[in-house]
């Protein structure tokens, strides 16, 4: 999971070519994450740049145990959370839980099974709808879910980046997925079947 030894050494030694490579590799995903966390494009640029400045100044401390991108996303989230309460707040009670509760009986069996047209929508249409539905997902849940599905971080990396326990991460992902699914189901579509998978 860590960075390879040669690159780690080059980063620690602040070799310009290695630093430039890391910067260029990771910038798009930092910008995406900052926007996902609720910043507009200009502020996302600022935060990503500030994050990379921290990285450049502390490059000698990089120990290669985690990937550089994990380290960088951790700094980014820390910086955003310092400004944005919504991102810092731990998820306590969330009204999606009531929606989920209403789906199951006391024994945990479906009372209202999924009847979503989610799978019946053509992929481009699904993407458009997801982009709309994402706006209704709280920043922190959206960030966790996007880092998982789009940037591909594993559980250990995500816990480090978001500074949460595995259990806490599970709650974020669980709520984000249910929220998106409910949103997609409620928008209803009369699309053609079997186009997605």
């Amino acid at each position, binding site marked *: 999971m860590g960075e390879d030894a040669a690159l780690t*050494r080059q980063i620690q030694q602040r070799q310009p*070519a290695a630093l430039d490579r890391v910067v260029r590799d990771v910038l*798009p995903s930092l910008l995406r994450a900052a*926007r996902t966390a609720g910043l507009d494009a200009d502020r996302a640029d600022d935060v990503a740049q500030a994050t990379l400045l921290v990285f450049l100044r502390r490059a000698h401390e990089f120990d290669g145990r985690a990937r550089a991108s994990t380290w960088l996303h951790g700094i980014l989230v820390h910086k955003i959370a310092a400004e944005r309460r919504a991102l810092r707040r731990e998820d306590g009670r969330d009204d999606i839980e009531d929606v989920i509760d209403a789906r199951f009986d006391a024994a*945990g069996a*479906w009372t209202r099974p999924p009847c979503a047209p989610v799978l019946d929508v053509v992929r481009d249409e699904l993407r458009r709808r997801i982009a709309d539905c994402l706006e209704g997902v709280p920043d922190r849940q959206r960030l966790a879910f996007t880092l998982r599905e789009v940037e591909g971080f594993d559980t250990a990396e995500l816990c480090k980046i978001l500074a949460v326990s595995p259990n806490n991460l599970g709650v974020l992902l669980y709520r984000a997925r249910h929220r998106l*699914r409910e949103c997609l189901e409620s928008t209803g579509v009369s699309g053609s079947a079997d186009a997605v998978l």
Partner: protein
Amino acid sequence: MLSCRDVTTLLARDELSAAPLRRRLGVRLHLFMCEHCRRFSREITAIGSAMRGATRDDDLAARAERIADRLGEEIARLGGPGSDGTGPAGRPDGSGGSDQAQDL
């Protein structure tokens, strides 16, 4: 016996791959028998993979390029003597307390 709620919770929390074998088999068996949970599972998988095209990042590459160019000056400045392209063998190891633990 796992309930529908148990199964969907495990799936939505992404906990299946780390679960004990017995639990994973229980989920598989449940999905085999339960059409609704199967549907739920397929849906959240489809949502996950469609996410990759759902983020709006039209101007992202151009902005990333601009920032990287700006940071290039900082890199040149920080690189300083001894690391301006002289190769990995230029310095003895541990010159900057590099094995100090770094956690965020």
